[in-house]
Structures are given as structure tokens and as C-alpha cells.
């Protein structure tokens, strides 16, 4: 990360630099002092001297957010942070020869690259300054994130009977088991599962679907059964899983959300 503090850099610092000596101070003082120097000396080379790594990193962060191009040199415990305003580099008034002398040691910013390419020098593409971390393995990834779950959970599924599809009811009952199981294993879960009319029997004590419905709920799917329907089938007091809802909520789901009726 650190460059060699060659004589070219030293000359540039002595010739054009505003020196901020922040040695012997702790954060945030070096940043504050640098900030003041930036404000008092626009479009000038500012050189801040610090004597600890934290201050060096913080001053560098600050300079970069202010659009400066940073070069840092370490000598023992002391750091020399040279910060060039972009205007200065564009005006081409400084460091003639410095970039040519040590092209590979430069921080690779766009402007330096531009300048370098103008002069026919190849500069390697930017290396990340942030945390150096290992790439995770592919198998680390298949899990839902907050945004993922929020976004994908837009669908509301309304089940109107305790079997799936039209045609054979017997087949439909078996299909419901497969359907719910597949749904519980699906990568993108629905936001809500609303049970209407005959479908509310699936949350009653005799239902073969309790386990899978509970697992859907565990995974964050909201399970709601129509109250009037539960009343009709005499199940209101013995609901095994999920909440009780009303027609207002069901209508709202149909009109305002992406609802699928099965």
C-alpha cells in the first residue's frame, strides 16, 4: 500500500505542499486539522504528518471523500500523507516526471490512469483498498437475505379448497400434499397463504397438512384462515396452526397484492 518516498516526492512536498503536522495527536484531531487545511488552501497539495496507523487511515479516508488523490509514505512510525486536489493534476502543474519515474507505485485512480495513458504509460488496474477477504465458497450462498425475502415474498396464495385443481378429488388431495411440501421447499416463498371455504379444514385437528403448514410458518410465511369459514365447519376453537382473518383482509390481498387463487 505504501509507496517509496523518493526524492521526487520529497521535492514536490517541499516545493508545493502545505504541511499539516498532526504528529502527537490522536483521532479525530489529524482529520480536523487536515479538513481545515483543505478549506484554507483550495486546489493545493496538502501534506499531513501523523504518527499512528489509525490516523493515517482516517486522514486518507477523509481526503478521498473530498476527491483528493492520496499518496502515503511510511518511515518508521511516521506517515507522510500527500493529498493532491484533482484540479491540480488536471492543470498539469506538478509532478512532471514523478508519475513517469514510478508508474507502478502509484495509487491507481482514474485521473492518474488518464494522465499515464496520455503519456503512453501502462498502469495496472485498481486494486481494492478495502478489507482483504477470502472469496466465499459457492455453497455458502443459498440463503435468503432481508431484501430478498421482502421482495420475493410479494405473492399471496389463496387456497379455496383442501385439494388442488379440478377433476379427481382423490388425486387433488394427494396433489395438495405434494404442493404444500414443494412450496415449503421453494426458494422463493410466498408472503401469505390464505385459506378460504373448504381449505380451512387443513388447519383443523384432523388435517394431514399440519406439519408442513407449521414449517411454512416457521419459514416466515403468514398463514391465515377465513373466520366465517372456520365457524361454518365448526373449527374456530380448534385451529391448530396459523391465524384467523376476515374477508376485508382477503379482499385487500386480492386487490392490492399479487394474489394467486388455487
Amino acid at each position, binding site marked *: 500500500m505504501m509507496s517509496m518516498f523518493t526524492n521526487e516526492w520529497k521535492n514536490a512536498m517541499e516545493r508545493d505542499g502545505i504541511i499539516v503536522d498532526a504528529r502527537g495527536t*490522536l*483521532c*479525530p*484531531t489529524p*482529520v*480536523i486539522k487536515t*479538513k481545515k487545511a483543505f478549506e484554507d488552501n483550495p486546489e493545493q497539495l496538502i501534506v499531513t504528518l501523523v504518527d*499512528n*496507523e*489509525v490516523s493515517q*487511515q*482516517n*486522514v*486518507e*479516508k*477523509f481526503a478521498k*471523500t*473530498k476527491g483528493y488523490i492520496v499518496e502515503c509514505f511510511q518511515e518508521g512510525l511516521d506517515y507522510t500523507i500527500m493529498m493532491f486536489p484533482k484540479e491540480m493534476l488536471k492543470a498539469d502543474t506538478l509532478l512532471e516526471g514523478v508519475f513517469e519515474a514510478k508508474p507502478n507505485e502509484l495509487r491507481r485512480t482514474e485521473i492518474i490512469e488518464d494522465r499515464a495513458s496520455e503519456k503512453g504509460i501502462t498502469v495496472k488496474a485498481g486494486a481494492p*483498498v*478495502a*478489507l*482483504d*477477504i*477470502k472469496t*466465499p*465458497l459457492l*455453497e*455458502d450462498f443459498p*440463503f*435468503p*437475505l*432481508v*431484501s430478498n*425475502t421482502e421482495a420475493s415474498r410479494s405473492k399471496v396464495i389463496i387456497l379455496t379448497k383442501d385439494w388442488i385443481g379440478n377433476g379427481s378429488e382423490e388425486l387433488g388431495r394427494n396433489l395438495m400434499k405434494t404442493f404444500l411440501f414443494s412450496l415449503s421447499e421453494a426458494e422463493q416463498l410466498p408472503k401469505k397463504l390464505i385459506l378460504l371455504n373448504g381449505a380451512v379444514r387443513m388447519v383443523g385437528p384432523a388435517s394431514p397438512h399440519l406439519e408442513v403448514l407449521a414449517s411454512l*410458518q*416457521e*419459514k*416466515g*410465511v*403468514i398463514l391465515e384462515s377465513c373466520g366465517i369459514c372456520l365457524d361454518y365447519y365448526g373449527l374456530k376453537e380448534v385451529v391448530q396452526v396459523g391465524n384467523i382473518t376476515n374477508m376485508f383482509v382477503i379482499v385487500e390481498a386480492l386487490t392490492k397484492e399479487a394474489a394467486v387463487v388455487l
Partner: protein
Amino acid sequence: MVKLTEFAAKGGCACKIGPHILGELLQTLPSKQKAEVLVDMSGSDDAGVIKISDTLALVQTVDFFTPLVDDPYWYGKIAATNSVSDIYAMGGDPKTALNIVAFPIPLVEQGVLSEVLRGANEVLESCGVALLGGHSIEDEVPKFGFAVTGYVHPEKIWENKGALEGDVLVLTKPLGTGVLTTAAKGGLFPEGVELAIQTMTTLNKSGAEVGRTFTIHACTDVTGFSLMGHAREMMKASHCSCALEAKALPMLLYALEGAEMGLVPAATYGNRKALGESVFFDAGVSAAYQDICFDPQTSGGLLFSLPAREGEAFVESLKEKGLYQASIIGRVMTKGAYDVYVY
């Protein structure tokens, strides 16, 4: 007026001895000396718990630190709020406190300490804690805090362990107190600093009380080891990993701006050094967000792990109790190569 922060290089929970330095040493200490000890330091929990009877256990913790704000009254308030936090994080109610004071004599003579005590006592009173006594010594750098004892039902202890795959993680208070107390020293972002003081003096009492009406699998408070450190401790103890979303993290106003301009306390770098190997950052997470992730919190919020289906209702209830920035910040998942993933 005396500027308290000038007495200490690092303030608040940022003056903790880093986990990378303490870790090895702690392993050499004996643990679980008695059968009645329900929680000891082996799980990196917030407080120790010893069982008294089948319905009662004592929760014990100690916390003290150097000044992180200049006003002594607010220093006292923050220190007291922070000291009782660990009891709430274990699911308990704080009952008694003993004061720990190290202070320069001239400051005591100038009435600074009595202001600190005034602020602290206001907090203790508001959460029903009786101050039983304390111990004070002369010191060049002021230090202030409490040893606090509370009650908890032995079967209702919240620990770091217990988070389950599929759980959501909820954080009750905004992050960024480390950045903003650093900003305060430079006189920057006064509005942000004010909000930071407000959040640091918000008791974790109401957050814990709301928690008791939900299915809490695990809980801790987020303090000096940063969100990353405390989330990692929870995941390690629960044998899981978690995925957090940077954009979902609640933050104090100007915390991100502060981090961007380099108002980053030294402890942030220490936390990163200690935890870098266990945390994965997606390439899209900016350096400033990463710094907030490692920002040492003083008197930070509670981090809860609870079933996903209860997540939204829980956050709503927290907001009703005035914890307006409470948010779902991520999910618990199967143990991966890293303990914490941030996207």
C-alpha cells in the same frame, strides 16, 4: 468548563481491551466451578447467572469506562444506562448497583463527580435499581461505572446460544455511536452527536420488556466489540452463521458521513483486525458501511434472534415503545465458512 474527553484518549466502550488481545487469556481461566452457575464466561455472554432457587437466579455484571462526552451529567447517564444493559440482555431485571469510581481529585473538588453521579442516579431510579454503595480511588484518567445485580427466572434466561436457522435478527437501536463520539471531539455533526447521546441514554429496558412477549431464541447487547463482534459471538454460540443486509442496518444521522470522512475510532480498526477472518463483506458493501459494522457501540441496542414469522410484529411493538429505529437486519442460516455475511 472542564472538557472531560480530553482526559482520555479513547472513550466509552471503545476503551475496551480488544477481543484479539483478551481472547487467549480468558481461555486460561477456569469455568463452571459450581453446579448452580447457569451462565459463565465460556459463551462470551453479557453477564453471569447463578441459580438461587427453581424460580430465581441472580444475574451479575460490571461495566465502567472513561469519558466519551464532555458534559459530566451525560457521562454519568450514559455509564449507568450502559451498566444495566447487560442485565436486560440476559432477560433479567436489574435490582441493585455498586458504584465504581476512579477520578482525579481536582475534578472531584470542582464538582464534576457530583454531576456524573447526578446523571447516573437519575438512570438508576428510572429503572428501579437501588444503589447500595461503591468504591472510589484516585486516578489521572476518570473512570466510572457500576457492578449491577438483577433477577431472572432460571428458565427464562436469554443467552448468546439458541439462535435457529431461519430466525430473523432484530436490532433495537441505531449504530454509529463510536463515529459520532469521535465527531464530537472535533466539534463536528452536532445534530448527530445529540442523537447519539440520546440513544446511549435510552435504556434497553423497554426493548427487553417487549422481547418477553415474543419467542426469543437468543439475545445480546451490542457494545464495544461492534455489531460484527456481538453477532459473531451469538452465531458461534448457536452454531449458525448469519446474513446481514448493510442497507437494512439502522444508523444514527451522520454516522455514515462521519465514517466516510474518517472519523473512525481506533477500536474500529481493532475490531476489524480481530474479526476480519470471520466476517464476509460483499463487494457492494462500501468502506463506510464496513466501518459502521465494526464501530464500537457504547450502550448499544439489543440484538435478538427470533422466529421469522414474529419478526415484523416484534419490530412494530418495539417502535410503539419508542424504539423507532428498531429493524430486521438479517437472517440466521446454516453454519458457513464465515460467521457473519454482510451484503
